[in-house]
């Protein structure tokens, strides 16, 4: 390495990235492949390739129930985390106050904490308080680590936000409420939307917290986890694919909605 461009080195690096990507996606591809069979035992390559497992999964009662539990938890987590994190982000990135650095460090602590251990600790905590674990307690557990994540996501947006815009609006005759509605919230909206998206996806896919805190209710990742060991059938990978597709659709819908809102915004000003 001596500063000159090296085509060989460049193509080595590109090949390395490709290898990383392939390795990263092997499990997902494996799940998809496994779902296209109709035998109760995994025997690849399948003798018959079929989508029967998907038909069974969609017809079965479990699929809907699992999705509903995961969806309830995720929506509750989104709403609460976005509200808490919006305030938290203001304290994190917008205002200057004594103790801000300490708050910043405290806030990231739950991220630097083993999740299953947190789940077990919360289980003991709920039981000590006499609360029966259910999907609500699972949502609470999710929030403990998702609130810091969403706060960071919104904060990153806030750092790029020019606070003087608020002074300018106020100076141009806006009331405090108008400043909030016309300047602050629209500027923060993208951060809040991506924060909500993070919250949804992280809650939807969470296993280590749900496993210990959801009590009798079962989320999708929990069910898949229990079925990987026992009671295998092609329906298990099929439901895994469906669950992943649902979260992918949420992302796409959010992206579409956002660009649509942006497009309408632009069109409204030119007409």
């Amino acid at each position: 390495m001596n500063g000159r461009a090296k085509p060989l080195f460049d193509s080595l690096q590109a090949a390395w990235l490709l290898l990383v990507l392939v390795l990263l996606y092997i499990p997902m591809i494996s799940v998809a492949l496994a779902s296209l069979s109709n035998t109760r035992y995994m025997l690849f390559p399948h003798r018959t390739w079929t989508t029967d497992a998907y038909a069974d999964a969609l017809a079965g009662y479990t699929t809907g129930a699992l999705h509903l539990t995961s969806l309830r938890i995720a929506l509750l987590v989104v709403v609460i985390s976005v509200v808490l994190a919006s305030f938290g982000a203001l304290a994190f990135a917008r205002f200057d106050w004594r103790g801000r650095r300490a708050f910043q460090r405290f806030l990231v602590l739950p991220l630097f904490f083993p999740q299953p251990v947190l789940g077990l600790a919360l289980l003991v905590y709920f039981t000590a308080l006499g609360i029966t674990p259910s999907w609500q307690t699972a949502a609470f557990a999710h929030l403990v680590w998702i609130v810091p994540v969403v706060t960071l996501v919104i904060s990153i947006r806030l750092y790029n936000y020019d606070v003087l815009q608020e002074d300018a609006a106020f100076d141009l005759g806006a009331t405090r409420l108008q400043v909030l509605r016309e300047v602050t919230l629209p500027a923060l909206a993208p951060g809040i939307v991506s924060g909500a998206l993070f919250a949804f996806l992280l809650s939807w896919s969470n296993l280590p917290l749900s496993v210990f805190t959801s009590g009798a209710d079962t989320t999708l990742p929990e069910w898949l986890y229990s079925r990987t060991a026992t009671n295998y059938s092609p329906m298990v990978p099929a439901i895994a694919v469906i669950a992943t597709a649902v979260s992918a659709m949420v992302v796409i819908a959010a992206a579409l909605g956002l660009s649509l809102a942006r497009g309408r915004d632009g069109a409204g000003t030119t007409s």
Partner: protein
Amino acid sequence: MRRPNPGILTMLPVLVFLLAGFVIPILVVALYSLMPPRTFDLAGSPTFTNYATAFADGYWRPLMWSALGAAATTLICLVLAWPTARALDRFAGRWATLVTLLIALPIFISESVRLFGLALFMMPGGGILAGSIDALFGVSIGTILYTRLAALLGLVYIHFPFVLFPLLLGVSLVPKDQVAAARDLGASGWQVFREIEAPLAAPGAAVGALLCFVLSLGANAEMNILGGQAVTVITNAIEQRFNYAQDWPLGAALTVLTVLLTAAVVFPVLRRIDVDSLARR
């Protein structure tokens, strides 16, 4: 005229929530760990019996396995993530954004799906890998599934992005002209790494390594799905005390030991890192 500081007002909801959902639960567990064995309330007189039992009955073993696994995972992830971060940084702007996105995507796919996929891939006989090789070349291969090595593979697979992204942030903060200047002054590739890149990328690497270590320390799904419980990891040990043995105080003591180990790693690193400037990027 004197109003409460808006910073303090806006941090209150999050602070209260994290106290109720993070700090107090840990304190409650700590309190349980001081209760007499096999009790279920907090009325007993405090004792250190459980900690003594934890050491006497060999519970340091699961903690050691977890710590070893976490350390190995962190090391392997760092070694794999460094060239990846360098490559992504080198191609920055072009298709690297897409690759970065593709690497990030699996974080949002459930661990159970991904580990399940790894298991399907590695299964002996009719697994995706063994089955394909058998069908293509007529060769039967063995498997590492249900061994410690498979669990380690799973740990590396799951935690790789957590090391990569902070590291990528760190690498992108290394000014290109400083690297060029060092080369111009006659530094070799290794010297550039040691003298310029490594120190400047260090905060990112530290955050990534820390995340990886702490998350792997508590991980148990990898051992359960891929490792076939070849060894007992600390989370499984705690769960057994809580659920099957019905010995809450001992489970709590093991939890506290894990929390202490985590704190011993997290606090010194976190104290040296400026969260503000890292988030600002």
